[in-house]
């Protein structure tokens, strides 16, 4: 990467209030280390322990969701196994954004679930979480399908998401949570 490119990225990050950005393969050890770094930042910047824990929790659920999905899919192309996660501070809010490749075939169901979560209020999300907790839906990778609901419960605004087509069979899925 040229010095000019680095400068541009750095300027963009500064403008967006980026605290941490990671792009690459999500191993559990990396998720944990980024989480530790995030907590140290939050400890310095945020006096409210519950707000810091909400940001950490949203980050963990998003990162573990992606890791579980990519582990399940075993994409052959190395770039497809890479994901990006960005944690930024904007005013008095924190924004956790993530992006990863999904199979085009998974898009409708994921979009449907996110739309449903988006249109549900706090009491409804609590109910949905409890129902999911009671349903025996644990998947082989260890997830229980509750991660997105948990993220939404900790957010100050409805989740934002988008899919950008990559090729015929794949899309880039972006999820943004404002805490």
């Amino acid at each position, binding site marked *: 990467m040229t010095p000019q490119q680095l400068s541009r990225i750095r300027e963009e990050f500064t403008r967006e209030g980026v605290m941490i950005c990671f792009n690459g393969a999500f191993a559990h050890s990396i*998720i944990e280390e980024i989480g530790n770094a995030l907590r140290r930042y939050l400890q310095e910047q945020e006096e409210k322990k519950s707000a810091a824990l*909400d940001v950490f929790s949203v980050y963990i*659920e998003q990162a573990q969701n992606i890791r579980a999905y990519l582990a399940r899919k075993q994409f052959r192309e190395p770039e497809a196994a890479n994901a990006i996660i960005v944690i930024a501070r904007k005013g008095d809010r924190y924004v956790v954004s993530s992006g990863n490749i999904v199979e085009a075939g998974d898009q409708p169901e994921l979009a449907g679930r996110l739309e449903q979560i988006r249109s549900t209020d706090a009491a409804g999300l609590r109910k949905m979480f409890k129902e999911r907790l009671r349903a025996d839906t*644990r998947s082989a990778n260890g997830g229980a399908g509750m*991660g997105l609901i948990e993220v939404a419960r900790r957010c100050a605004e409805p989740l934002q998401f988008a899919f950008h087509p990559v090729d015929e069979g794949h899309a880039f899925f972006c999820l943004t949570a404002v805490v």
Partner: protein
Amino acid sequence: MELNIPRTGATPEIRWDASAGILSVSGESYPENSFDFFAPVMQWLSTSLPSLPGLRLEVSVSYMNSSSIKCMLDIFDALGEAHAAGKKVEVVWNYETDNPRALDLAEEFRSEVTFPFLVQAIGS
């Protein structure tokens, strides 16, 4: 039967104190695979609980990811069955007063069980 799982960065310490009859869970829980992590605890419960008069579960957990919450509920369900079978079962859930999320979590669990479940604030 012994149960002694040491604490790591993403997993809590889980210990059975046979002389006191206390099973304790303390730390944080966000392992990569919660079901694998909690499997030895479920195994221990199904092996040991039938021969015990009961047990007290002490939880001091400040954060759990969603799949750990699911596993914790499995533990409470096992305790609920033991309680229904006449065993003395109780839970003490400690939370730090400056962590309202841990209190919310405790209250959600408490609403799911029928045995004594004490939620207790500790200063931090």
